[in-house]
């Protein structure tokens, strides 16, 4: 089969799967792990509405030929700004609230374990800004959003008898450096009022953390697992001793942004993760060198597989920095709760 044939075969995928994509694109919202303040959000939006003396961009609702030439003196000013809704509630971190099934070397299921979830505080703030073109010429209202937050932007134009919603999704910014996310141009006729609505959703970890006491108890069967390397230190593999292998997950947490969908780290806490590391540049060949890195960097590996390099590791918050350094050296790291292991990956 040729690659082009596979690409073409995907043409006939079930439309229900493509529908999932359409819905996801329209309604996704941004999440960050930083603490969010309402004042910062108000400043973020209010200070960024201004007029740009250049032709407006052709949006879905504004055919290019209808946009008038703009004048640099013409402005659209913000006349009102209102925080219309703020809500906050504790939600479970669903990324770790899953049941999973464990396997021994046979394909049969031997046990099940539920991971305890950690609640996070979700805060949603909705702000409306009203802008008016008090000039005698048509102008472009430029709506820009920047900063280290991830708003879902839902600007829309209102006229006397017509409302044209133009929803869009803005990307999340992971770091704290303010920068422009996206720009929208809206044609504003003289005396036209434009209302923009910005929704920002953030998450916050619980303020109180549990006291750090000790390493989670290592199950006896994992203690029996041996690992060794060859003469070059380039390969590590493990053998099991005992009747079966069981994976223990203690206190899953919500992710630090660099390793999204993994686990959150409370200071000093240790927990088991499932990890895979491989060269970024050679991932097409499927190279896997996690064993070397774990040996050299001292991450506490208890079980390894040689097929694709996935292994169990007992890590702390400090190990995150190690993993970041490893990524900066040109590797890809994939972290997951230790339960996220497929049966055919077992050694």
């Amino acid at each position, binding site marked *: *089969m*040729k*690659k*082009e*044939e*596979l*690409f*073409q*075969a*995907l*043409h*006939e*995928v*079930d*439309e229900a*799967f*493509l*529908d*999932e*994509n*359409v819905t*996801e*694109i329209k309604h*996704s919202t*941004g*999440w960050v792990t930083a603490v969010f303040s309402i004042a910062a959000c108000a400043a973020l939006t209010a200070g960024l509405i201004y007029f740009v003396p250049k032709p407006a961009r052709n949006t*879905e609702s504004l055919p290019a030929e209808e946009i008038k030439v703009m004048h640099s003196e013409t402005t659209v000013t913000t006349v009102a700004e209102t925080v219309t809704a703020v809500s906050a509630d504790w939600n479970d971190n669903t990324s770790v609230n899953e049941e999973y099934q464990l396997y021994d070397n046979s394909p049969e299921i031997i046990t099940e374990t539920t991971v305890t979830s950690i609640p996070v505080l979700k805060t949603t703030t909705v702000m409306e800004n009203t802008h008016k073109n008090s000039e005698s010429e048509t102008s472009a209202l430029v709506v820009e959003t920047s900063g280290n937050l*991830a708003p879902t932007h839902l600007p829309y134009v209102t006229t006397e008898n017509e409302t044209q919603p133009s929803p869009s*999704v803005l*990307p*999340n910014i*992971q770091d704290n450096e303010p920068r422009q996310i996206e720009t929208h141009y809206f044609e504003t006729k003289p005396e036209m009022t434009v209302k923009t609505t910005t929704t920002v959703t953030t998450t916050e970890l619980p303020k109180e953390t549990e006291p750090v006491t000790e390493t989670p108890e290592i199950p006896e069967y994992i203690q029996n697992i041996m690992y060794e390397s060859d003469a070059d230190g380039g390969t590590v593999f493990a053998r099991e001793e005992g009747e079966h292998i069981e994976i223990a997950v203690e206190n899953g947490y919500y992710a630090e942004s*660099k*390793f*999204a*969908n993994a686990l959150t780290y409370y200071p000093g806490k240790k927990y088991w993760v499932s990890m*895979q590391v491989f060269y*970024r540049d050679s*991932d*097409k060949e*499927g190279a896997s060198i996690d064993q070397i890195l774990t040996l050299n960097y001292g991450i506490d590996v208890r079980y390894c597989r040689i097929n*694709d390099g996935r292994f169990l590791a007992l890590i702390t918050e400090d190990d995150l920095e190690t993993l970041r350094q490893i*990524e900066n050296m040109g590797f*890809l*790291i*994939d972290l997951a709760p230790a339960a996220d292991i497929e049966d055919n990956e077992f050694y």
Partner: protein
Amino acid sequence: MDDMQIIELYFARNQDAVKETEKEYGAYCFSIAENILHNQQDSEECLSDTWLRAWNAIPPNRPARLKLFLGKITRNLAFDRYRQKNAEKRNSSFEAVLDELAECVASPEDVEKSFDAKALREGLNSFLKALPQRERQIFLKRYFYAQSVKEIAREYQMTANHCTVILKRVRKKLQNYLEQEGFI
């Protein structure tokens, strides 16, 4: 205007059908074509061909999801145009998508097998159905819509690295599945 009203315009052979279709889905279809062709003029021509195909196909077809019906036409037309225009030169962005898919069809025996196209389509749907939703969505965004890894990572609020890892895992699963089912 909703899909049903637009489709009724097609059935009435009212040329406003094309105008309304372009108004509702022009940007969506354009982005599909642009992801493959990376050329505004070619993408716009693709769109015109899409409206013509839709006009000729409706009736008798009455698509349940007009947006996806049009998107598939555009994707097909864009890919055909891509192959015609780029027989010698390579569009690196879209070629990267095809090169990634090449991993899935690499046969350990290095022999090209013939396959039943219908069985492959059914097999792909079964494979996709068995995937977790997020992996399925990311896979389709890359290999159906030909979106860049960066765009996909942004939509799912993850790093590009993480997205690459997920795609690699799914491609490996697909390769195993295709081997198991005898397609490669």
